[in-house]
């Protein structure tokens, strides 16, 4: 096993398109790091540069202590699981898994032992003689995983491996990959656009946008302390609510919404962080679970607003309520006991102790 270090890595394609810009990531040995971001953010490009499938325009890539910029993929001792499985269709499942070992001239008994062991772990032992076309999507992805694990590489790379599976299979495979990480105790770098996958699987998450790393941290760190408005909006489902407005000062600091008729008192614990912004335009960010109806406020919360329910989405154990205040869409996550019909007006309270403030121009977190 080995760590992976990207230092100032940049990828510029012919025509000047910058796919990744000054990427600095340090993946510890045996760590599970997830690269997440919207389509076109450069996460797959970064992964492909680690794999050696894309040349690095600038910067340095280390696997372990070895500089890998000019090392061909076959000599990097990595394994990659592709989004579209990329199984060799003319070979059986067994031969697909044994392919890499045969190329490396492993003795036949060891190849058999490793393939059988991997097939046992992944539950595909009965399919070893089949061709990929005779397998379901989930089974094919297992074979792709098996092909990676038989090699026992230094680093595992996953390029959105679950995005072609149906929702149920995705949840199942998600858990299996997490288990596999614990069992193999290997360094894994996983690319996804699905923030739920990122939150549930990663030891640390790297959030990317437009080829630039936005923030690196543990899932809870990103959820509780997003570094900027993009990360705050990307991590969490439903996404964080944002209100444009201004921090003003009377007796105490308060936030006044630009469009939404909001006047929210800023709690004392945040006041210390905000005085410099008084009079400045900011974004206030509140997660859906921090906008609560009267029944759940228990008299502790003071800032409120009357909002009309536009859509109500019952999820079983909870309900997502969608409101509109001016041009501001607002979503709240409430308990299943409260399930108002669309059109109902509710007094919603804002739990400002969990509020996030972002600079309006730079969109970076202020508090």
């Amino acid at each position: 096993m080995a760590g992976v270090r990207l230092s100032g890595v940049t990828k510029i394609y012919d025509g000047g398109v910058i796919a990744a810009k000054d990427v600095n990531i340090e993946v510890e040995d045996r760590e599970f790091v997830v690269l997440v971001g919207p389509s076109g953010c450069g996460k797959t490009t970064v992964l492909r540069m680690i794999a050696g499938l894309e040349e690095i325009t600038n910067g340095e890539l280390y696997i372990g202590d070895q500089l890998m910029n000019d090392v061909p993929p076959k000599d990097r001792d990595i394994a990659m699981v592709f989004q579209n499985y990329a199984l060799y269709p003319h070979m059986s499942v067994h031969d697909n898994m044994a392919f890499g070992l045969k190329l490396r001239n492993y003795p036949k008994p060891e190849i058999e032992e490793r393939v059988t062991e991997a097939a046992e772990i992944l539950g595909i032992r009965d399919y070893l003689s089949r061709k990929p076309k005779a397998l379901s999507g989930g089974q094919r992805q297992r074979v792709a995983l098996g092909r990676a694990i038989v090699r026992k590489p230094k680093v595992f790379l996953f390029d959105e491996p679950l995005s072609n599976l149906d929702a149920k299979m995705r949840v199942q495979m998600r858990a299996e990959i997490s288990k596999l990480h614990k069992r193999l105790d290997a360094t894994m770098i996983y690319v996804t656009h699905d923030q739920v996958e990122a939150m549930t699987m990663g030891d640390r998450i790297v959030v990317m946008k437009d080829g630039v790393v936005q923030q690196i941290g543990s899932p809870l760190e990103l959820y509780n302390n997003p570094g900027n408005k993009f990360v705050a909006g990307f991590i969490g489902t439903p996404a964080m609510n944002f209100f444009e407005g201004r921090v003003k000062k009377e007796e105490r600091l308060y936030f006044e919404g630009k469009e939404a008729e909001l006047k929210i008192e800023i709690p004392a614990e945040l006041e210390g962080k905000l005085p410099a912004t008084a009079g400045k335009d900011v974004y206030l960010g509140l997660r859906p679970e921090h906008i609560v109806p009267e029944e759940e406020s228990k008299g502790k919360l003071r800032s409120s607003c009357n909002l009309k329910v536009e859509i109500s989405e019952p999820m079983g154990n909870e309900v997502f309520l969608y409101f509109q205040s001016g041009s501001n869409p607002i979503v709240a996550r409430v308990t299943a006991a409260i399930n108002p019909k669309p059109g109902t007006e509710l007094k919603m309270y804002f739990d400002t102790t969990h509020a996030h403030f972002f600079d309006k121009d730079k969109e970076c977190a202020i508090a």
Partner: protein
Amino acid sequence: MNHIMKTTGNKFKINNLQSRIISLFLYFLLIGFTLVVLYPILNVFSISLRPGDRLLSTSLKLIPDGASFHAYKVLFAQTPFLLWFWNSSLIAAAVTITGVALASTAGYAFSRFNFYGRKSAMVGLLVTQMFPPTMLLLPMYIMLLKLHLINSYLGVIVIYTSTALPFCVWQMKGYYDTIPFSLEESARIDGSTRWGAFRRIVLPLAAPALVITALFSFMTAWSEYIVAAQVLQDTSLFTLPLGLKQFEASMSTQWGLYAAGSLLVSVPAVALFLILSRWLISGLTLGSVKG
């Protein structure tokens, strides 16, 4: 209920009758086409069996009166038919091997690499197909003359390969385009070099295109007459089409030998097609990637 069942039963009978009539019509049509295709072959076979080099006959008999394999015996025993066969085989094999080797690699380069002049080269290859071969005869002859390749196997091999290649490169490129890049990338990560990934993964999956390339190259060389007639002057180098033409004289033609030779010439082409047709299958890449 009974009424509904009766109506459904009648409908079923009508549908069944309709499908039978359609099948019958199709069978007649297919038999008709088969006869159209088979008649000339049977006619040539019949001529090859006729005694006395008779081309025309009023008899409708497939096996003519006095039929014998005399023409075949003469063909093998008294003419250099086997030499022509050897020459043709040698040239066709060389053209096929060269064609497959060059088209498979050139097509791969056009499909996978982005190099300067790629598009122009592709269009250039296409443009060469717009000129009739007879128009190219003179410039090619001059080129071969300067290269001292007139009256040599290599001369015809060069011309046949160069005329077959543009089509073969295009069709190989088109086929490679359908093979997902990720298969090669996966092989390269598994431990292959780029060449290894091409050889172990891409080529086996491109089997149908390779077969087409092989058949096209083979047929270009096997049945060609005009170029061979210009380039090959020594009778010991003659190919089958040139050899068969020897049976035709200004006053008389040995139709029996001509017909027997023609039939035998077609045997290797048919055999090769039958052997290679098992590779002409679709869906080789099924299951490799999410479709």
